[in-house]
Structures are given as C-alpha cells and as structure tokens.
C-alpha cells in the first residue's frame, strides 16, 4: 500500500499583476504583457487564473494560458474577444497599460513541454489555442534547442493568424522547425498552403510518424481537438503521447 501523499501544498495566492504593454495581434485578439512582482516562474503550457473586481464588489474569474516562455520577465496572456463573454471583452477592449488585476498560478502540470522533454515535438493549434503552444516554441527558441518540431496551425483567415510574423521568423531561422498553416475560410490570393480543416490526410502528410515517438500537444476549439486527437490515435499514436487543451466559445477554458 502506498503511503498517503496528501499533505497539502502552500496555497496559490492571488497576486497583483500590472499591464505593462498591450499588443494587438488580430482584430479580435490582444496580448497583455503583465508584470507580476512575486511571480515564481512557470513551465511552457501552464495557465493562470485571473480575477476581476467590479466597483460593486462583483468578481469574475477565468483561466488563461501563459503565452510567454519562462525566460521572459513579463507574463504574456493572449486573449480572444468572445462577443457574449463577460471577461474577454473587458480584457480586449477596455484594459489599458497601467491597469491592475489579480492573478494566481501557475496552474496545470500535464499540458507542459520543456527543452528537457525528449523526442520530436508536434504542436497543433486552432485559433487562440496557439497561446500555450507559443510558450513552448518561444522557450525552445530562447534555449536554442533543435528538437525537431512541427506546428500545424489552423486559422479562419490570414488576418486571424496570431503571432504570424514571429512564427514565420522563427521557422525561417531554424530548419528543425516546420510551420504548416491552414486557412479554413478565406485565403489571400496566391495562397499555396492548406485551405481546409485539419484532417487525417493532412496529419499523415505533414505529421511525424508514430515510429518517431513525437510528443503531441493540441489546443483549440473542441471540434478541432476532438478531430485531431482521434485521427492521431487512428494513425497509431499512443494515447499518453497526445495531450489536449480546449479553448474558445465551446472550449470552456476562457470566456
């Protein structure tokens, strides 16, 4: 019988975060760069809870993935405005540099990749689901690690691609990083990339074969995550190598 390992850890306390910069990523998405003075560090893929307080004392909490790598001094949250949401429209439309709100974390220890992880890295993102995967890519780039890596990124249009220029630059300077974009609704003239939702044929075509034992991280809206993970299982990737996180209007992680 295993001895109980139930001694509780210290509580994750609420801390004050101050917005130091705001980056407009797409018409619906902004990144908030936060200074969190007592931040203890995080692993790429982890998330935080934030808590907003209205003047009448009403509070709302939501979870957001951390998009910045542990190497950065500021903590980046990338937020997509969900029109019926309560918190995301505020964060995207109303928050200004200098504003403060509460935050606690880091949270989650499963959907995590560090340069110490062995094997190729396969990242699959839909829309703002790129955020935690960007933390992994940025961590990999900062550490100058050449683990063979693939990012398959599904966006509705080129305009909605988040971190587009940064990702392009990252892959141009790194032959071990492949970037595969698919634009599912609208493509610019001359677009030669994929123009459909991520499907089994696409995964078979560009993905790592199971024999290479890639570590797979999928983050996006539930339909994308369900489809991609099911296809990967059908292609022979073992269950435990496929880690998933859900985002967006039907994803529940943020609203």
């Amino acid at each position, binding site marked *: *019988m*295993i*001895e*109980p*390992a*139930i001694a*509780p*850890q*210290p*509580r*994750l306390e*609420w801390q*004050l975060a101050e917005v130091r910069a705001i980056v407009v990523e797409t018409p619906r998405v902004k990144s908030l760069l936060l200074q969190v003075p007592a931040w203890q560090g995080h692993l790429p893929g982890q998330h935080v*809870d934030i*808590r*907003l*307080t*209205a*003047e*009448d004392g*009403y*509070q*709302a*909490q*939501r*979870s957001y993935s951390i998009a910045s790598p542990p190497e950065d001094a500021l903590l980046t949250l990338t937020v997509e405005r969900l029109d019926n949401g*309560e918190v995301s*429209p*505020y964060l995207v439309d*109303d928050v200004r540099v200098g*504003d*403060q*709100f*509460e935050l606690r974390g880091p*949270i*989650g*220890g*499963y*959907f995590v990749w560090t340069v110490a992880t062995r094997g190729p890295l396969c990242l699959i993102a839909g829309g703002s689901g790129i955020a935690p995967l960007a933390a992994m890519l940025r961590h990999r780039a900062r550490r100058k690690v050449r683990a063979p890596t693939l990012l398959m990124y599904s966006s509705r249009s080129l305009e909605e691609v988040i971190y587009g220029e940064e990702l392009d630059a990252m892959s141009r300077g790194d032959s071990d990083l492949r970037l595969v974009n698919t634009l599912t609704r609208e493509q610019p003239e001359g677009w030669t990339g994929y123009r459909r939702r991520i499907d089994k044929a696409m995964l078979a075509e560009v993905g790592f074969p199971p024999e290479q034992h890639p570590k797979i991280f999928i983050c996006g809206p*539930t339909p994308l*995550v*369900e489809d991609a*993970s*099911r296809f*990967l*299982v059908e292609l022979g990737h073992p*269950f*435990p190598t*496929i*880690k*998933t996180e*859900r985002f967006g*209007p*039907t*994803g*529940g*992680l943020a*609203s």
Partner: protein
Amino acid sequence: MAGSPISRGFRSRRQEQTPRNRVPPGQYVTTDFPVLSAGPTPQIKVEDWTLSLQLAGSLLGKWSWAEFEALPQTTIKTDIHCVTKWSKLDTTWRGVTFDDLLKGVGLAEPPTPYVMAHSDGGYTTNLPVADLINGRGMIVTRYEGLPIPPVHGGPARLFVPHLYFWKSAKWVRRLRFMEKDERGFWESLGYHNYGDPWKEQRYDGD
C-alpha cells in the same frame, strides 16, 4: 473580497436570474456543455465495456453492459460545477448509485474509507467513500435521457456532483477500494485533493 483592486470599468454582464445560493463562489452559469479532457476521447463500444469493483488484488464484482443495465436505475436532476469556473444547472442523469453497486456484490458496508476511480485512457481520481455512499455518488450512463456522448464521458462516467466535476471521472471502468488515500491524476498535478466547490477548493492548499 477585501484587498482586491477595482478593475476600472469592469462590471457584471450577467443576465441570468439565478439565485446566488445556486452558484458556488467564482463560478459562472453556462448553458453550453464545455468539454475538458487531458487527452483523446476513448471510443468504447458497450459490447466491450465492463465495470469492476476491486479491493487490493481481488475482484469484488464485475458487470457487463447488460448486467449493469439490469441493476436498479436512478435518475437525478442536479447542478454541476467545473473547476474551470463554469456551472451548469438542472442537468439530468441516470445510472446506478454506488450504494446499489455495493449491494450488487453483497456488501452491507464499504470495505475501505477511500476509492480510486480508473478510466479508459489512464485517467484516475480519488474520493472518500463517504462522498459516494448514501446516494451521493453514481455511475451514470444517460444524460438528459440519452446515452452520454463519448466526449462527455460515455458510455459511463462517475457522477459525484457535490464535488468539482473532474471528480466525476469520464469513461470509468474500475473502482478500486483503498485503505489509505492516494492522489489521482489532477490531484497529483496541483489540483485540490477533495474539491468542494462551495469552499472553492480548486487547487492544492485552497
């Protein structure tokens, strides 16, 4: 809360008419049914499905789908609360109570104070037996009168609605009695060992 800074310009956009005592602290009500799983959704046919009760190395009982369906069925309408902040009100589930499973294997009392639930895909979660008996815990197979979709844990999930919903393990296949408490999957990754939404026990130390 004392000490929380006012978020300039932030106000509630709630339109719901929900009485406050229905929603635990930090939760919001959704009419969606969000999906949160750590990996792929297992696709299990009911022909291949079994449920086992296990104590140490020995099997206390095992049901096929048909045998499980023949056990007394209970319907419950209640609210569910996910640690990712959403709550869903008045959801209806049907299945077999933990009490009826115990009766089914001829046990008058649970043999140990703790249980680990094991699921297809490798997920686990730990619970005190006290949170399963007296109608508090079930294995459910129907949601709103229909088979539970795989993405929501079908064919069968554990159902312990008074705790955060990660305790209601999807795709459950085995309940293992334990003398001593052990941490399950999320409980080993920084989430609270017990998970009472009314005490907002989201993470370790809460």
